[in-house]
């Protein structure tokens, strides 16, 4: 779809074509209409405090409830870890805690939860997920490139034919580059 300016240009050209003597008119039109055709900022909700208030107010109670639900969820996962003797279930609970701490931006807790999960004797699929995520957190969030390399390499060594290992190999290249850039 043609932009406003393209349409305007077409109008001006048409006027000029139809009335060759109206070059001056065309010129004036160009100047005036060009100013009018410049895109103006529409009044939208992002910058309108009243609209922002309405939007936030609408979502507020749900957010408060979510915070409470987050605390309950963490309690439940920790209770599972304490109550179960099933290493796989405990490992999955730690993975979920890692997701929660990741979502709340606590990178150190995320690392710890992933490492705890890896100590639980999880199923291979969960192990791969945990190692991949651990490598990412170490590299991208904690800037611990050496530990990230260890995590990715462990994934590659232990699960060589998996898609996670293939991804880890690719990421490993970038970890090395970031590590060298960081040293520089």
């Amino acid at each position: 779809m043609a932009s406003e300016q393209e349409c305007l240009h077409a109008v001006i050209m048409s006027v000029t074509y139809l009335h060759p003597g109206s070059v001056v008119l065309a010129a004036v039109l160009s100047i005036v209409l060009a100013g009018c055709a410049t895109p103006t900022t529409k009044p939208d909700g992002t910058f309108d405090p009243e609209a922002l208030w309405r939007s936030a107010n609408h979502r507020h109670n749900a957010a408060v409830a979510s915070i409470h639900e987050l605390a309950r969820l963490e309690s439940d996962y920790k209770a599972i870890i304490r109550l179960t003797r099933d290493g796989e279930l405990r490992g999955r609970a730690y993975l979920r805690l890692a997701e929660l701490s990741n979502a709340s931006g606590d990178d150190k807790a995320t690392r710890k939860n992933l490492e705890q999960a890896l100590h639980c004797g999880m199923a291979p699929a969960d192990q791969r997920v945990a190692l991949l995520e651990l490598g990412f957190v170490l590299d991208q969030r904690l800037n611990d490139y050496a530990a990230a390399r260890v995590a990715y390499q462990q994934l590659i060594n232990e699960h060589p034919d998996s898609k996670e290992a293939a991804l880890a190999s690719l990421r490993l290249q970038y970890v090395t580059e970031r590590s060298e850039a960081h040293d520089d």
Partner: protein
Amino acid sequence: MMINRSSAVSRLLPTLLAGVLMLTVAVGCLSSTPARWEPERKIPFSPDDRAIAYTHHDAVYVARTQGDKHRKVFAAEQGQLISTPHWAPGQRGFLFAVSAGARDQSSSNIGYEVYFWAAPEDIWTDDESSAKSDTVELPERWTPGPTKRLFRAEAMNAVQISADALFEWHPDGQQVIYLDTTAGHQSVRAFDRQYRASRIVSPISNRSLAFSISTDGKYLQVASRDSEATELWFGPLDDLISDWKRIEDRAGPKRVPREEIPIVSPDGEPAWLYDLRPQLAKWSPDSLWLAHMRSVDAEAEPSDDPEPVDVMLTPVDAPDEQRSISFPDDRLNDLHWAPGSARLGFLDGSDLLVIETSTGVQTDLAGALEVERFIGWSKPGDQLAYLLSTEYFDSTNTLLPTGHVVRWAPTDRHNLVVAKHDGTLPKSRFNMMNIEAAQWGNQSAKLSFWATYIPSVSLLPPGDPAAVLDLDKDSIRWYPTDLAEYAHVGHYYLLNGEAGQAIAQYSDALRRVSDTTDDEMPSLARNLHLWRGVAYRTTGDRMSADLDFTNVRENTIVEPEEAASDWDADLLRTLATDRDILSTMISMGYVPIATGYARELADTDSDVRRIQALCYLSLVYDSLGQHNAYTENIVEALLPALLTSPAMPTEGANEMLRWYLERLTDHKNIAQLEDAAKLRHGASLATLAQSNPDHRDGLLRGSSVFHRGAGDIAAETNTLRSIASQD
């Protein structure tokens, strides 16, 4: 409604409130008091790993790591001290030191004698097929072959004997290197078994001394200290100072165990004997390197704050070419060389680090996990082991009708993790018990350690059987030395979900108990019925469990101070039994079983047993963060039962009401509830207040807190006004 008012109970209550039914172990707490010398508890393997020998309860034991042979070799007489046994290199015998523990009147030193015991051949000819279970038989009352006294020497203090700080084998298996004391100074000597002669093998002597010999036997290292810093020296086994080299004049860590000794110092200050072994450098397996810690600021007083240290690497053939690696704090422990001498592993606080000696590159082997002990690499070098703490949770309490406070808190239980040599593929190999003095075998993937069950809720008698974990065969063998330890082996199985094995172990222990006349057996028998009943319950065999629990109840002894109260003795016995059953279930990790049992008690009883069961439910809900269930249980069940109980003493009921209302209305609890729940519980408390005029104010205040938490200003206002108007 009848409430039993008893002045005797009111006198008893403060005492009972002070009685905590739990053994709390503070994990990792720092203290500003100096560390004391500790008895050595290692369980050394024979050179071929086919046997172990250890000192326990004033006796020396030897056992096969396979099969059933378990023997007491030597029993100390009253007052005697025994060291840990030391297996002779390449031989089937070991040394141990014995001392009367008394100071010689002329020298003021403690005399000790070193004995050699040659193990009989059947220790080695017995095989695994004769073993009936994972637990070896209790030690036979066996008359051992004669021990041979090798030599006598003198120690500065008796602690050196029990701490096993006095002697080591030379790798040649013919010489014994040991400390001797003369005129207030210790020196290092060597005893030759062939020539039965002794000589001085180091020019260094001092009040506090420690030594270690290189793996190849060519060099001796000595740590020496008078009152200031510790010096480290090494040299060949001779007394020529010109042959010796000082490699450190301020060894770290600064804080080492010490014991006061009866020597008059020139300055009149107490004289101390320091255990310098933590400051000794570690020999690399090829004897080419020494690794030790240097204290950066030797002038500062030891404190609990971290202090910077350097790890020093000294090449034996060029000791002037030391290298240093700096660390910001001195919490470096458990230094171990990896086989091959290219890597040095240690704990930096709770971080497990490895340093490549050639490059100085450091690697974190356990990530962000907090390692409590680093056990080192296996001799083949393909595995390493460390201990993690198993339990991280907040402690919680509950107050029982009898005034006891039951606490559920983390204790010092470990997770023994074995990983590949580079720390990858970590796997838990032993769990849920406290592990002490763990060490690798000399050749194979075996680990020996003491395993103690520390209850997290209820008190149990002490007991810590020795264990050998064979990683290759994925098996564990236990070495109990008495019936109590034999019973405690059952705890391992119960903790790890193997109820059948636990029942078998407890049953076997019960049979043996019935055959003895020991005064302490009735108490052990009662506890065995308790533990076995819990184990039966976890398998669903309620009939067998109930039989055991009945036995427990019949053999429960009410404490004299409790018996003097106005509580019915049978009721007290029943309450104590319920308490022990529920506490044991929770402590062993069977929380759903415990809550099911508690609910049954609450449903079948209408009075104090019900109240106590509801208290245990509140403990579990609180500990697991189940705030809705916690609040529901207290408001809708526990408080109504408490306020209508005819048997509850008034003072006790008042105290419980105050205690539970305080915790109910804590903002951390209120904040976790839905608004609808807050309103409902607020209304329930207000209703309770109407029918309990004696407790109206407290209940209404509690109600107002719930209303406030739900944002119901009107209800809160009304409640507070009604309290004020009554006042």
